């Protein structure tokens, strides 16, 4: 019996489609470009709309958001490039619209007096809003409607709300279409109702509007941007009134918005496409989409979305009728209050992360601290790319949950930045004021600071090991996909990072021995303890991993054989951390003493417990190292905030401590009230920046799902382990469909009473792997495209 609801042949088609998509993406196009004429696009499906997602894949609420609450209550939509947070207020629909490339700032290569980078909104820059769309329906004031209900259909990628006013049921839906490159709002009713009101599209940077249908302007850094809106109605009238679009007596109303910038991922061109007029292109796209019937726009969007969303499925068990009766916000409260597992909510939380990934990471810049979603122009830490956990965590789940295609944004970003990163490193890293400079006096390759922007610029302090961690993250994508083309693409990044470390590593003789080892120069273990420590564990571990990857890559591509030998030799001499005789912890510094904060949020010295693989509780790692890592993880504690909990959860999953891992996931699912750490009503992860002020940090929305998958399936090339850390809460019954495994495989897995009952492994390029559960191990060999169903794990 095939337990999968997916038709296997359909999956095969999708796999091929994805591969084709991957190839196309390699020739990274500018972010905002003309597309095929919408009306006759080849991907315009004529299939009838897919049924709405099952209830377990719908989030729902009984209140809208408002302008002041969009971070907690706004529903995110996005097509990977443009996004919006929507209020879904019946009388006052508000969308705050972003484009991933809408950034102030620039190269930022004039260092401060301390040899580090400026970190302001003008110099380094900030991710900002592009536009603000309102659709006002004065007669539909929230105070005059009943039975308000708001949904986010994760299975279709459609947000919306419904309500009753004077006996008429009104519905509105919104989504951001990738194929049509627009945000669509569709207002309908049943019962003889009408829509009357007005639409405004404005900027948020002091633009002077002169037209209702579009605007364009440039930021002080020269980035041009523009947005356009079109409205179409059935019945009634739509008229342009100055800087407003009025609509009156409309049975149905479709509003289409497009926006973009002239950003180009090309350091040589100063990250601009001088030939692109964003306002004009937005007008063209909005007009084209508005000419397409609303149901066709929707079908096209849903089919496109499903092609990604449908690649992965999971069930963690069945929730109770009482849990199902609660709206999403109440359900988060009940889950925390009663401390009772709510498996369907937990699975939906994971799928929400996938929704955000599909909505936020396609064909443009990668996801930063807030992904594609802002509620103002002053996001904390600029909404930037933080290279010491956050951007990496954002992408842990992409491959793990069948969204390999969404990973390309990160790889393309790094590749596009590389010339600038290399240039700034060459000119600035050796600055005598830079306390992290190389003692050797030599600088090579590339490095970044803790923050990076899309203009080749770094912000705040230099972060030597950041290059290595970016590279190991990029490498994992290769391990999942096995794409040689992709490996070729990222190879220069790997090699440049190795060159940097070749110039940086210092030979030292270990005290009391004659053994010479190589260590990292003056550095800071993120983000605590001494700032001039040599040989920090974080750098030693991640560079060790980087060097290994580089050697594998060079061999696979048949390139740079001699340099690979050099790197391999360096790797053999790298110092690796010891366990402190004082604390029993894996040392974070080359010291037996705890030089930092015991419960610090970062787990940098455990980078090779997760996401790396060097430290494994399977007998391959010295027991004392595993014990030291476990002791350090234990000391770090279980009560932190979003991303810190997610990382801890993934580490506990690697240590096969299912209950600790689950507890950390549960901690992240606590409802955030009054700005406290936890999950907001809209499931955005909230970090309490200061008492009463919570801010959105999207990393936990991705890191928590990654940890959840790690609990259910561990893989590294050549090895797959089923249900390594299955908590009691999910043990009764569940399944995974299409979960990728490193080494080039996909797994379908069903379990009952904690044991696998059905296991199918498919090769998407991998040849040989072991598949293990507990002490049961199988060795399988498959041709690419072939699959095998394994039996016997359930006993």
């Amino acid at each position, binding site marked *: 019996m095939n337990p999968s609801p997916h038709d296997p042949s359909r999956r095969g088609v999708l796999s091929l489609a994805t591969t084709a998509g991957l190839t196309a993406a390699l020739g990274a196009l500018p972010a905002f470009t003309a597309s095929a004429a919408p009306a006759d696009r080849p991907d315009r499906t004529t299939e009838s709309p897919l049924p709405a997602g099952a209830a377990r894949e719908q989030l729902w609420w009984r209140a809208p958001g408002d302008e002041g609450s969009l971070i907690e*209550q706004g529903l995110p939509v996005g097509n990977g490039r443009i996004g919006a947070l929507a209020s879904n207020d019946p009388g006052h629909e508000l969308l705050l619209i972003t484009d991933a490339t809408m950034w102030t700032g620039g190269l930022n290569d004039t260092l401060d007096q301390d040899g580090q980078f400026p970190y302001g909104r003008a110099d380094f820059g900030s991710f900002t809003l592009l536009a603000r769309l309102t659709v006002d329906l004065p007669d539909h004031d929230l*105070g005059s409607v009943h039975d308000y209900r708001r949904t986010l259909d994760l299975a279709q990628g459609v947000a919306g709300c419904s309500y009753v006013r004077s006996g008429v049921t009104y519905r509105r839906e919104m989504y951001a279409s990738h194929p049509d490159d627009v945000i669509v709002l569709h207002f309908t009713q049943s019962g003889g109702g009408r829509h009357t009101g007005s639409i405004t599209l404005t900027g948020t940077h002091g633009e002077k509007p002169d037209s209702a249908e579009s605007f364009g302007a440039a930021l002080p850094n020269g980035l041009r941007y523009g947005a356009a809106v079109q409205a179409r109605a059935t019945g009634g009238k739509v008229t342009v009134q100055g800087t407003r679009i009025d609509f009156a007596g409309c049975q149905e109303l479709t509003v289409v918005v497009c926006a973009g910038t002239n950003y180009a991922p090309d350091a040589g061109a100063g990250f601009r496409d001088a030939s692109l007029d964003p306002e004009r292109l937005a007008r063209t796209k909005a007009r084209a989409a508005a000419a397409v019937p609303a149901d066709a726009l929707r079908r096209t969007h849903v089919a496109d979305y499903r092609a990604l969303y449908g690649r992965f499925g999971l069930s963690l068990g069945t929730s109770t009728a009482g849990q199902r009766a609660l709206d999403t916000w109440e359900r988060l409260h009940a889950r925390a209050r009663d*401390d009772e597992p709510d498996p369907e909510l937990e699975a939906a939380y994971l799928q929400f992360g996938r929704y955000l990934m599909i909505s936020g990471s396609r064909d443009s810049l990668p996801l930063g601290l807030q992904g594609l979603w802002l509620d103002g122009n002053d996001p904390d830490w600029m909404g930037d790319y933080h290279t010491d956990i956050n951007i990496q965590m954002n992408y842990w789940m992409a491959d793990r949950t069948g969204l390999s295609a969404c990973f390309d944004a990160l790889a393309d970003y790094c590749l596009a930045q590389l010339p600038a990163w290399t240039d700034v490193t060459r000119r600035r890293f050796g600055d005598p004021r830079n306390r992290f400079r190389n003692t050797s006096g030599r600088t090579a390759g590339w490095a970044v600071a803790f923050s990076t922007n899309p203009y080749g610029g770094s912000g705040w302090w230099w972060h030597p090991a950041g290059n290595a961690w970016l590279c190991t993250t990029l490498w994992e994508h290769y391990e999942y996909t096995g794409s040689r083309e992709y490996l070729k693409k990222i190879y220069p990044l790997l090699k440049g990072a190795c060159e940097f470390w070749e110039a940086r590593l210092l030979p030292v003789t270990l005290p009391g021995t004659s053994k010479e080892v190589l260590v990292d120069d003056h550095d800071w273990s993120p983000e605590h303890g001494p700032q001039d420590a040599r040989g920090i564990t974080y750098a030693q571990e991640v560079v060790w991993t980087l060097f290994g990857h580089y050697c594998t890559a060079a061999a696979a591509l048949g390139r740079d054989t001699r340099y690979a030998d050099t790197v391999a030799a360096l790797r053999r001499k790298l110092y690796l951390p010891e366990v402190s005789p004082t604390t029993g912890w894996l040392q974070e510094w080359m010291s037996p003493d705890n030089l930092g904060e015991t419960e610090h949020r970062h787990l940098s010295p455990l980078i090779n417990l997760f996401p790396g693989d060097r430290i494994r509780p399977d007998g391959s790692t010295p027991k004392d190292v595993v014990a030291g890592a476990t002791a350090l993880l234990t000391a770090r504690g279980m009560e932190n905030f979003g991303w810190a909990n997610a990382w801890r959860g993934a580490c506990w999953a690697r240590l096969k401590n299912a209950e600790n891992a689950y507890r950390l996931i549960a901690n992240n699912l606590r409802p955030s009230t009054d700005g406290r750490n936890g999950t907001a009503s809209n499931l955005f992860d909230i970090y309490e920046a200061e008492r009463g002020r919570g801010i959105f940090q999207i990393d936990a929305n991705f890191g928590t799902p990654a940890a959840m998958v790690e609990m259910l399936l561990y893989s590294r090339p050549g090895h797959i382990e089923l249900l390594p850390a299955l908590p009691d809460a999910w043990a009764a019954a569940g399944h995974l469909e299409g979960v990728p495994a490193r080494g080039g495989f996909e797994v379908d897995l069903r379990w009952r009473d904690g044991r696998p009952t059905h296991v199918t492994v498919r090769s998407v390029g991998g040849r040989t792997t072991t598949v293990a559960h507990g002490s049961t191990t199988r060795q399988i060999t498959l041709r690419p495209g072939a699959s095998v169903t394994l039996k016997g794990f359930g006993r």
Partner: protein
Amino acid sequence: MRSSSYSALPARALRALVVLALTAGVTAAVPAARAETAAAPPAAPAAPAAPAVAAKPYMGWTSWTMQSSKYPGLNPKGDYSYLSEANVLKQTDAMAAKLKKYGYEYVNIDAGWWMDWSWTSHFDEYGRQKADPVRFPSGMKAVADHIHAKGLKAGIYLPVGLEKGAYGDGKNPIWNAGGCTTADIVYDDLRTTNGWDSAYKIDFSDPCAQKYIDSQARMFADWGYDFLKLDGVGPGSFKSGDNYDNVPDVAAWHQAIEATGRPIHLELSWSLDYGHIADWKKYSNGWRIDTDVECYCNTLVSWENSVDDRWDDAPAWTAHAGPGGWNDLDSLNVGNGEMDGLTKAERQSYATLWAIAKSPLFTGDDLTRLDSYGLKLLTDREVIAINQSDAPPAEPVTASDAQQVWAAKNPDGTYTVALFNLADAPAAVTADWAALGFKGRASVRDVWNKENLGNRTGGITEALPAHGSRLFTVTPRGTRLAWTAHEAEAGTLAGNAVVAGCSACSDGHKVGNLYSGGKVTVEDVVVPSSGTYQVEVAYVSGDPRSVLVSANGGGGTSHRFASTGDWGTVGSVYVPVKLKAGTNTITFDSGTGYAPDIDRIDVPTSL
């Protein structure tokens, strides 16, 4: 000219009867209701006869709101200069034209009528306040005459005590009190009184003192005033202590007004001391329970300063409002739109609370510039009818959390139910019928929206904007719930918790000292099926306090309980508690803070 509608009958005797009846009714009704079904707030017993003054919460206009505002253009001649004869007459005419037909009748002149633009006072030779000839060139009587000619009633204002400027070295004679001078009516040490220390405290042990009050009352009666706001009254007005005990002043005013033979409504201001409610009820027709609603800023009011305080402060006073004397929440400034300083949702919530709490409905808005939404809020006949009805004031039936439900049981068996979302973001709010004492269906009318919503089972949920509200009339069509009582003192105590005597509590005891981890667990709570039950919690709390409520040792939900006014008064609200079929425990845990004392809980015997 005296209006024929004025009764010459002194209102006082009737008032006293009503007050006694109310007090008895409340005392008796609470335990009785608990013993039976402990459903909705007890209905006030029908008053034997309507008092001549303040039979209903009064309705009208006050000058102070615009006087106090920094809104551009309102006070061109300096602070508080909005108050002028021309402006009062203009507002009178606007009220007569727009609001009178809905019941608005009082035009109240507030502070400053005896002061010039620079706030310097005028007094007559008897130490009585004298109209400023520039502010009121025609004099106060002419203004009252104009107001009466429009079929309205006139209100005037005084601070309590002998104003310092009236003292005149103690030599000013008291009118119609042969030989008495101002020196006779104050203390030798000229101790000061009132909320601003702007007056000498009057020594009522000297008979001249009453004569001075009589002379002021006579003056107002002669001018034809129907209403007096006596301001700065203590204990209250942010003052306490002997020098600020103005109960004798209020009693003297009561007596003086009675002696005039004119029914003059006496309203006390501001933030009157709850502990003296018996005095306020005995001697006056209304008492400001809180500080000024005005923000003294660029608008008339603002939500945070201090409209939103009323949701916390009104509940304790609820039981004390009734014919003859009402809890005054201060002016209702929802009519002007932008100048009010509130969102539309806030304006509706403000109007809703004032209406259901049976506060006087007097606005301080510019009645010549009401916007259409403001006019709708101020003139909704159903809402006004709720305010003016014979039903008791509404009070919270849920905890005073960010989302809360208030209700009152009406004499006809329906309920007035208001949902409030006091949070800064939109939220869903649910009125659970169990918190009204019944289960099953009820038909619901949306009062503001003039819409019958049909039958709703179990309750009604609405999406409310930030600071938003809904107002319903709910007609039960279901069955009454039965309840099982559990005395808190029979529970298991932990931490500092102790059983304490409490004469107002059922069985004479409560659990107190619930602080810093102190908790009480009520055992053996048996219900037939699992689900969320509305558990009625009777408690005592002299200030608003929060408590963590949990079942069966699970995680607690923090609920904030409104003050019951003092540590001898019991209040009750319903909190949702998730119970399992069979035997449960319910715990009230102070956590790291201070929790209310718990008297007892009543658990529905079915869902």
